[in-house]
């Protein structure tokens, strides 16, 4: 590249000129004069480092790596692997906490020593960190726990290994998942193409955490019965039948501001996808959609009346939530729930071990979140899918690529997955999830298994433009939730216009933004 040469020359000029400047200094005994020389020194290092960094083997390594336990090419070597994961996210942390088990396994079966280092960043910042690193073709992180929506960007940049190709030579990665939604959410980009880029690390869905100690309190049962002429749901099966109208009653019933107790909690934070993930269920479950992945149409689909109603319904729920709910993110919900501020909370299944600390053991029931009543009287619930895939850095050198593959193969061994489940992670392979007794391993597994189907959960776009599209709608959604704007339909119009424009300009769709978009403003 021309630019690269230009900068090399500039760098050389700088080093030379620095030396020139320093030329006067060696002759003088003044102590401080040594310092300009120090300024020169560091500039030389990157000059030398740059070319070495540039030449990196790529995907080739992925293809040639075949399992050969007998005489493993890395036998006797010491390898240090680096994983980038999501900060504060139990399942992501588990991947690393369990890595010593792999080290043992590798030592025994392959004969090499491996250690793992772990880097992390919160959801909101991890994409920047990962992508900024991958853009330099660096193998700073050998394996990355990515959020499902990032697949598009990583894949388009060719920064991650194509798993579909990998499966051809490594059939171990063709695992049977518990539901097609697993592949759709964590593997495939572009949507519907069947090309796989990731391997599920953890499956996740929105579930409802219920303070069973409050719900089974005889006084609450009696009071509720008296007020609404209905029974407070007590069991998993009761909750399966709960719809939003009933849930509103329940939330109203437990909202007792004088006692500092509130009915429920959703996320409304502007950070990352927090509000989006808890608003989408209102749309998905009432028949709304967000785009057409085939032709990239957004305007006309997202800004429907159904979705506008869904936004209104979502905002209405605020009155049963603590004052701070508009700022609620994953962590805030954990705090509110475990500190007894709310009777129920919508939260990721992945947060199970944080939502049910030792003090609350046996007092929490985890159930499917409320359904939405359809026109024909049937019940439907479609909630957002969470969870993350592993992706493999395509710039890994041969040795690291080899270990990454060995590690991931080990990851999908039945005993590894079972251990993962016992430590609080949500497995996705059919063998583990469908095994007898799975539902009893963790208190939230029954609800997780119930929800982790194409019928009950779905993901949103995996487009490379996802982060810009996401921040646009986060702005619109939070503006509406906080009351900065009060016309749900107009908010959706604005978001749809902006997103259509983003997609069009990025060349992801041929559909231009609607002509009416010129006059649509968020705060009209």
């Amino acid at each position, binding site marked *: 590249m021309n630019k690269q040469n230009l900068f090399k020359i500039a760098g050389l000029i700088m080093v030379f000129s620095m030396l020139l400047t320093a030329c006067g200094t060696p002759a003088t005994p003044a102590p401080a004069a040594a310092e300009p020389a120090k300024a020169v020194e560091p500039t030389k290092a990157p000059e030398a480092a740059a070319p070495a960094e540039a030449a990196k083997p790529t995907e080739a390594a992925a293809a040639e790596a075949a399992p050969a336990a007998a005489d493993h090419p890395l036998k006797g070597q010491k390898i240090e692997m680096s994983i980038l994961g999501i*900060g504060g996210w139990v399942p992501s942390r588990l991947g690393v906490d369990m890595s010593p088990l792999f080290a043992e396994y590798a030592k025994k079966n392959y004969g090499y020593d491996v250690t793992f280092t772990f880097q992390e960043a919160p959801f909101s910042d991890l994409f920047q960190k990962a992508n900024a690193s991958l853009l330099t073709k660096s193998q700073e992180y050998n394996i990355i726990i990515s959020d499902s929506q990032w697949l598009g960007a990583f894949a388009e940049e060719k920064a991650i290994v194509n798993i579909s190709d990998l499966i051809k030579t490594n059939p171990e990665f063709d695992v049977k998942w518990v539901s097609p939604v697993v592949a759709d959410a964590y593997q495939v980009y572009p949507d519907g193409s069947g090309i796989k880029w990731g391997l599920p690390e953890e499956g996740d869905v929105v579930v409802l955490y219920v303070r069973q100690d409050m719900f089974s309190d005889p006084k609450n049962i009696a009071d509720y019965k008296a007020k609404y002429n209905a029974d407070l749901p007590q069991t998993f099966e009761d909750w399966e039948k709960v719809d939003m109208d009933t849930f509103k009653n329940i939330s109203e019933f437990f909202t007792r501001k004088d006692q500092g107790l509130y009915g429920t909690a959703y996320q409304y934070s502007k950070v990352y996808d927090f509000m989006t993930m808890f608003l989408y269920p209102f749309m998905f479950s009432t028949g709304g959609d967000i785009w057409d992945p085939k032709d990239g149409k957004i305007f006309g689909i997202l800004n429907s009346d159904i979705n506008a109603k869904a936004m209104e319904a979502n905002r209405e729920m605020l009155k049963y939530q603590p004052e701070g709910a508009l700022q609620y993110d994953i*962590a805030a919900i954990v705090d509110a729930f475990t500190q007894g501020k709310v009777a129920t909370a919508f939260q990721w299944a992945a947060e199970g071990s944080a939502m049910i600390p030792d003090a609350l053991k046996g007092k929490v029931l985890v159930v499917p979140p409320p359904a939405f009543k359809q026109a024909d009287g049937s019940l439907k619930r479609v909630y957002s899918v969470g969870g993350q895939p592993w992706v493999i850095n395509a710039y890994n050198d041969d040795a690291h690529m080899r270990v990454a593959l060995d590690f991931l193969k080990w990851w999908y061994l039945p005993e590894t997955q079972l251990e993962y489940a016992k430590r609080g992670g949500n497995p996705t392979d059919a063998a583990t999830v469908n095994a007898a007794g799975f539902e009893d391993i963790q208190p939230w597994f029954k609800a997780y298994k119930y929800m982790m189907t194409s019928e009950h959960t779905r993901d949103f776009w995996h487009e490379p433009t996802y982060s810009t599209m996401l921040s646009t709608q986060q702005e619109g959604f939070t503006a509406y939730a906080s009351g900065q704007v009060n016309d749900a339909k107009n908010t959706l119009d604005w978001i749809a216009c902006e997103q259509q424009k983003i997609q069009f300009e990025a060349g992801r769709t041929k559909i231009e933004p609607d002509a009416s978009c010129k006059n649509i403003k968020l705060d009209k």
Partner: protein
Amino acid sequence: MHKGFKTTLYHIILWIVALIFFAPVFWIILSAFKTKDQILSIPPKWFFTPTLANFVDLFTRPNVGTYIRNSLLISAIAVLIALVVSFLAAYAFSRFKLKSTSLIMFFLLSIRMVPAAASVIPVFLMYVALGWKDTYPGMTLFYAMFSIPFSVWILKGFVDGVSERFDETGLVNGGSRLHVLFDVVLPQVRPGLVAAFIFNMVFVWNEYMFNYIIGGKTTTTVPVALVTWMLNQGGVDWTFMASLTVVFMIPPILAVYFFQKYLLIGMTFGTVRGEI
């Protein structure tokens, strides 16, 4: 007697003002000695059995030592480089009345005004092309650049205040120009150097975004570590945040305590005439 009372009252008011500003910091310091439940409890716990467990936990975490070392090394070296470079330039601007002086001084200052996100974009593009991302020199020299404008401004003020007669005498007596520069002028601008050092050090020390974007796992500094490791087991890890914040604030606070006089004189940009 009456006057004495007034003075006492005046002194009490001053202390109250200082303590009001310090109160949130004090609360953070208290938090560092609490358990997470105590930090979150309302009404706040003013009396509790302090625990050192947070600090023990902090220093047994992997990498925390590396982050602190990175912070110390990168910021100290960056600011030192900046001071040397700036001192040379300040001397040149002050003594030789170069035609370009005001133009360069002007550009230096306006660079500092550009939002970090804007100034990091081109540098990021450049570092990607050159492979300088996540290297110590790349990080240090970038911070040095950011410390130069203010240092030049402050040091030029001080060098202006040193009479040219010193230079002349030095040269007449047979000293070289570099000798004049470092042995004669340098000691006289010490307050400016200290002020520039502390001021820039605080900036680099606490800087988050540049390190996040053009740094990486080897050059991570404490502010980035604070943000990236702040969550734990699904909640904000308040004990980690509090204890690391407390450890991290010690160096600048000590610097301000011990070099306070220099700092106050230094911030006059060499125009000190009265009592501070």
